[in-house]
């Protein structure tokens, strides 16, 4: 399988703190890759580096063979990488349809963007809330709206930052099904996720970060069996 996104030796420090420390990994086309790690491991910073919200100190990001390191977020979005935010970032004054339309405008003229937004909402199961404003949405629907905005930009790859957190496992089933469907439609996913049952059931591969460094990479089975991962989550002295 070919790599759609290549992350090479990516580093970022804030003051004395190295939030992301020479992290490298590939994301393969059509897979769902989960990035996990304890709080403060650098997962969200990594997303911000890749999507252009933060400029890395060193290292590179290559999307479909072309470097995107240092590009601003709108340029990264145009190249085909969409991201969601850990804390759901809604457009408070815009209806669900308007928000998704704004995203679809990236590649389409307005009237086609509106039609496309309706299709995306249909697909993801938000069509009945098209005219609602975000304040009136349930947490589950807000998460779906975040995913819908990403999809509407017509991306090749989507970075989802804790899109399942705050949902019960039952509530998570709707967005989970949507993600699986989209992956089958050819979109690659990278997700930061804390909800382990979700990660284990959804991810093809997992990258584990701790203190800004990559400590493990592999299939869910490999990761569960990995000693470094256990140490990262439970502390090194667990068995002592």
């Amino acid at each position, binding site marked *: 399988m070919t790599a759609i996104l290549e992350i090479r030796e990516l580093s970022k420090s804030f003051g004395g703190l190295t939030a992301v420390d020479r992290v490298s990994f590939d994301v393969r086309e059509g897979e769902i890759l989960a990035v996990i790690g304890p709080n403060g491991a650098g997962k969200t910073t990594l997303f911000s580096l890749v999507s252009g919200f933060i400029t890395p100190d060193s290292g590179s990001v290559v999307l479909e063979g072309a470097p995107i390191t240092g590009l601003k*977020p709108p340029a990264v979005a145009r190249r085909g990488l969409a991201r969601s935010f850990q804390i759901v970032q809604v457009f*408070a004054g*815009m209806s669900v349809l308007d*928000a998704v339309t*704004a995203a679809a405008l990236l590649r389409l003229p307005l*009237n086609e963007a509106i039609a496309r937004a309706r299709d995306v909402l249909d697909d993801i199961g938000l069509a009945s809330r098209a005219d609602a404003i975000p304040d009136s949405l349930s947490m589950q629907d807000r998460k779906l709206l975040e995913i819908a905005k990403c999809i509407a930009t017509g991306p090749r790859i989507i970075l989802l930052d804790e899109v399942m957190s705050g949902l019960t496992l039952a509530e998570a089933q709707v967005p989970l099904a949507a993600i699986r469907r989209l992956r089958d439609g050819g979109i690659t996913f990278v997700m930061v996720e804390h909800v382990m049952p979700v990660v284990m059931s959804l991810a093809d591969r997992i990258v584990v970060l701790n203190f800004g460094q990559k400590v493990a990479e592999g299939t869910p089975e490999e990761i569960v069996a990995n000693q470094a991962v256990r140490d990262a989550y439970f502390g090194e002295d667990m068995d002592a």
Partner: protein
Amino acid sequence: MRPDFFQFLRSPLLWIPVAIAACLPWGLSAYHLAIGTLALLYVSLALAWNVVGGIAGQISLANSVFVGTGALLASALYIRLGIDMWFGMVIAAAVSAILGVFMSLLDARFRLGHLSFALVTLAFAEIGELVVAGTDFLGGASGLDLPKDHGRFWLFEFGGGPGYFWAALVLALICLVVNQAILSSRLGYYLRALRDNEDAAQAIGIELFRSKATGMAISAALSSVAGTLFARYSNFVDPTLLASPNLTIEIVLIATIGGLGTPLGPLIAALVLIPVGEILRGQFGGTLPGLHFFLYGVLIIVVVLTSPQGIVPRLLSLRRRFRRA
């Protein structure tokens, strides 16, 4: 352009009020017609401000700079250099647009945020007034007198009360259509998304500077054109009136009381508040000067406390609720 924009352009709800307004010069006294003209000029100013203040959600306090540029630059070019005021109007609008884009550049470059943006634009307004007072070409502190109006349309002369009323009506209509066009187009989506959340907007590919600068340029140019018309209408450009930050504050108050974002709020608020203010000034100007400002003050407090989104959106939502019940 969304199809509802063309419905708006064809709507009798738009053209019947315009047609009625266009007939007013035959029914109103000169005094009341002058109030009507002033109200229409404020409609233009409030709607021009709404592009940035309402749709893009940035409290810009620099609109007096644009109005002053339109009034003083176009007048000075005419008086001093003999440049036709139509052409002067276009030059002033272009200068205003460039100034506006510069403010957007500062905003994007330094990520000013709402409060800092308001303060920076206020600084521009204060500086603008000082620059005018110190520039003889623009009339300095004493202002500019325009030559007598002979009704020569090609020289930007509209020949008295009715002519200026119609000119102000046309400009107000243009400002309304521009507002509606922005809301029904790509730019409207971009500005609203940026208003609500800059990071999320950029994440879906929206260019911050390009969008905000476009909105700012449109707002500045429209404000400037209103300034030029205001100047020619009053025959005398008073810099303490048209280049002063007080004018911006008045525009912001009117637009905010009416309700931001949609054009209807600033439109209706200007049409109600300016005539009420003028009549109060006419009635009580001798004994209670500034009563209309007091009225604005009371209104803004009431609006902020009861319906922060503004009176007109509030009334619309009440009507919807009433209909449902």
